[in-house]
């Protein structure tokens, strides 16, 4: 049996209101481009990227969900198996920030409870139109014990950092969990034989 081409595999799901820039964040990270006039995502989108962190290959499966209400039922079904959620809002849109508690309720309801959630305020390139102050978002994130980051998919600010930080955090958690319960039975499948235990066995 040949070796897998990665040491860790994580599933990351992006959620948040429609039009906050989820797809652009993913495109910027995976393809290094900022698609102007990106249309609304239909249902869900899939991207993959392998990064190397401290010599370990980390494969990130990124599921980019539609923000539109009508796709809510299918997008919710993707939360369940996520290792990490990127909850995105638009710093120039107060509404998208106000909806966050609602999204947190959804996460509570549908995601597994070990999921790592990170709050992302996108579109910092439009600083002059900012409606949500950084402090406010930081306070909110802290109150909900989430990580917080502000990004710009357009200027590529913090995008790389967002995913890499997340990957680090996930590796840390995975190792932690591995120590905690070394004898956890592996999650069947995902192509791993029993000897290749890794993060996904911990869901």
């Amino acid at each position: 049996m040949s070796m897998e081409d990665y040491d860790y595999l994580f599933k990351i799901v992006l959620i948040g209101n429609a039009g906050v820039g989820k797809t652009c964040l993913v495109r910027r990270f995976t393809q290094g481009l900022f698609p102007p006039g990106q249309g609304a995502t239909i249902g869900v989108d899939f991207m993959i990227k392998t990064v190397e962190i401290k010599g370990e290959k980390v494969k990130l499966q990124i599921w980019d969900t539609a923000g539109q209400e009508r796709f809510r039922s299918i997008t919710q079904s993707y939360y369940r198996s996520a290792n990490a959620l990127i909850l995105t809002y638009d710093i120039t849109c107060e509404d998208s920030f106000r909806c966050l508690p609602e999204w947190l309720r959804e996460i509570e309801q549908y995601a597994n409870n070990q999921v790592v959630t990170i709050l992302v305020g996108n579109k910092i390139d439009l600083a002059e139109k900012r409606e949500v102050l950084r402090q406010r978002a930081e306070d909110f994130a802290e109150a909900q014990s989430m990580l917080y980051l502000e990004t710009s998919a357009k200027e590529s600010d913090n995008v790389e950092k967002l995913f890499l930080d997340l990957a680090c955090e996930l590796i840390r958690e995975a190792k932690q969990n591995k120590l905690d319960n070394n004898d956890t039975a592996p999650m069947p499948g995902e192509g791993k034989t029993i000897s290749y235990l890794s993060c996904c066995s911990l869901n």
Partner: protein
Amino acid sequence: MQSQKNHCSVCCTLLFKAILIALSVCVCVCVCVCVCVLSEQYCCDCDYLVTTFFPYLALLSCLCTELPSRVCGCCGALRPRYKRLVDNIFPEDPEDGLVKANMEKLTFYALSAPEKLDRIGAYLSERLSRDVARHRYGYVCIAMEALDQLLMACHCQSINLFVESFLKMVRKLLESDKPNLQILGTNSFVKFANIEEDTPSYHRSYDFFVSRFSEMCHSSYEDPDIRTKIRMAGIKGLQGVVRKTVNDELQANIWDPQHMDKIVPSLLFNLQSGERTESRSPSPLQASEKEKESPVELTERCFRELLGRAAYGNIKNAVTPVLMHLDNHSLWEGKTFAVRCFKIIMYSIQSQHSHLVIQQLLGHLDANSKNSATVRAGIVEVLLEAAAIAASGSVGPTVLEVFNTLLRQLRLSVDYELTGSYDGSVNIGTKIIKAHEERQLQEAVIRTIGSFANTLPTYQRSEVMLFIMGKIPVPGVHPALPSTGSGPEGTRMIQVMLLKSLVQVTAGFQTTNMLTALPSSFLEPLLSFSLTEDPEIRLLVLQILLSLIDRHDNTPKFSNIRCVIISDISVLKLKVDKCSRQDNLFMKKHGQQLYRHIYLGCKEQSSGRQHYETLFALLGLLSVELANEEVVVDLIRLALALQDLALSTDEAMPVFNRCAVHALAAAYLNLICQLTTVPAFCQHIHEVIEVRQKESPYLLPEDVFIDNPKLPSSLEKVEGEVLFLQSKITEVLGGSGYNTDRLATPYVPQYTDEDRLSKRKSIGETISLQVEVESRNSPEKEEVISWTPAEEITFETLKNAIENDDDDDCFLFPFRPPPSPSGTISSGYGQSQSRSVPIYEMKFPDLCVY
């Protein structure tokens, strides 16, 4: 084998060192040729060669490591045979495609040494990963083709481990963002899915495949052609996952919500988006591709297959996402798509499960009780269609629950319409209730009730009739009406709605045994409604009676009273069966009641043209469906009594009603005389009608039952030859053996307690009570009935009141005995009471609470 491996590893290290030693190329070439010859000769494991030609090989290999393996094929001698065989299937130029001859060799090898299969798989997968990473897509395709062929060839043997590498490769392809690789991977997966494995697999998960295929179903690739291809691949992939997992208990349960919530919406999305494109006019290009299956067709096929495989326990998980999808995409309002979905569902699932779908729909309707009327109407419409498809299986074991839910919705809708809000309190103004939408919903619910009832066998249908009858409110009985604000108007509307439902339920109702199908517990409350002052309610009751009595589709033949004055009724082509014994018993028991209600119905001042026409139809039906000699005599007496009624000056009847009653009597006598086929009788009737035609046409249907009848301002001098004569009729019928004594006695309707009691100015003033003796004694008493002060009277006191108190202004009880399923005696009339428990209470003690 072990020694072989050792040899290999030893020689590997040696060979490595040998690279350092410089040797002349020509020597190598010589050796090379020599080895090649030998290797052809001993086409076996490398063992032999290694031991025999070790020194030469050492030299040789140093060359080979520097040259691409394909250039120097002979070096394969050093690699394990399976790797050599795998390498050989790849052509130098990927354009050339799979090397077929070598592929055959590989297949043969795999078949003869199945234990090597997993290594072949692993190696192929390794190569493929490398090729994907290096964008050598030609080789990727070749590798997949080889894998497919191996899978097909070897599937009879255990392919368990091989499958691991195979799936890894498919996954690798699916991870790619290149559409052609995704499609390639999907196609291979689909081929694999069609293989039936004989050994179960313990650690195989299709999570990723379900997620990815669902995602592909939603592809938004820019190029529409490629987008369609990706979406179709997604659908096929999902179909494959379902096929692969559905029968294997060890594998992930595909019916789990986590999978169904992805699969079903993805399918529906494609089913729906197809609908949108279909509506466009097809371009010629599309027409030429018509042979190919469209995404919509594919989706539908896949959806049907999925549903067809659903077992009893899985239906819920499969249908729930459908309901959610329709909710989220607001597809109930449009109806067509929702109906289409559920048609597919109903036709695809195993028929014994169809009631589960109906139950879920009903549950969903309840859950949407506070949603807008259009949404509720959409769900009801779907129910209507679904019920028709599921036919006998649609209702399932909980017949009355189905009807209870629908009736509850009807009542809620009436409340919403009247109170203008969804919670009965002061309108907070969240949503505006549109009365006309509620009306449409009510119509839809009523039709749906009919549709469900149509699927039931006769005995269940009469049970449902009883159930609905038990729900019809009489003020004072159901004080717990939720609609505090709707008051008497609400009660009336509910009455009308429920009677309309009964009209639907009874439509087409055909029974051989009237007596058991229509127990007094149903007939009596029904008839009591025929005596209210509300003309709409009276008309509904008449319609219900018509459909109950009509068993040969004769009703339409009586629908046009104006044409009935004809000399020969044979043109009506009435279907007449001989009266059965049960029919005779039925008429013996209920005949008098029916006559009385017809008589009183004619007398009602608010009766209009429609009422008289319906009354005529009722008389006609009685004559053809249920008449024996005795009944015929009674009916003739009734007709004559009606004539007397029209002549009477005591009753303050308007001219129209008098003329109408005359016309009705004439039309009916004309009918009955021909049915009796007594020539003298016919002659008398004919003569009178002829006189009327000359002198007073306003006493005949032709002039009365038209839009603007020309009637005299007052009716005087209606006497002599324009009247039918009792004596004459008695005389002519006596000659034919009819009971003349009885004919000579004029018909006088017997006023019973029931009539006195229910004949009140308005239902609002009527206090009535449905005595539910049994339920009062039952433990569920508290939840069953909430007693109001008016009802804090025990049954005994009420009974005493009836017996002792003659002043009926004090207590007026249109006594309604509870419907009894067995049709046992509950003689009514307020004097005695039935102790039977209504069947719906036995089954659903809590159904009494609205």
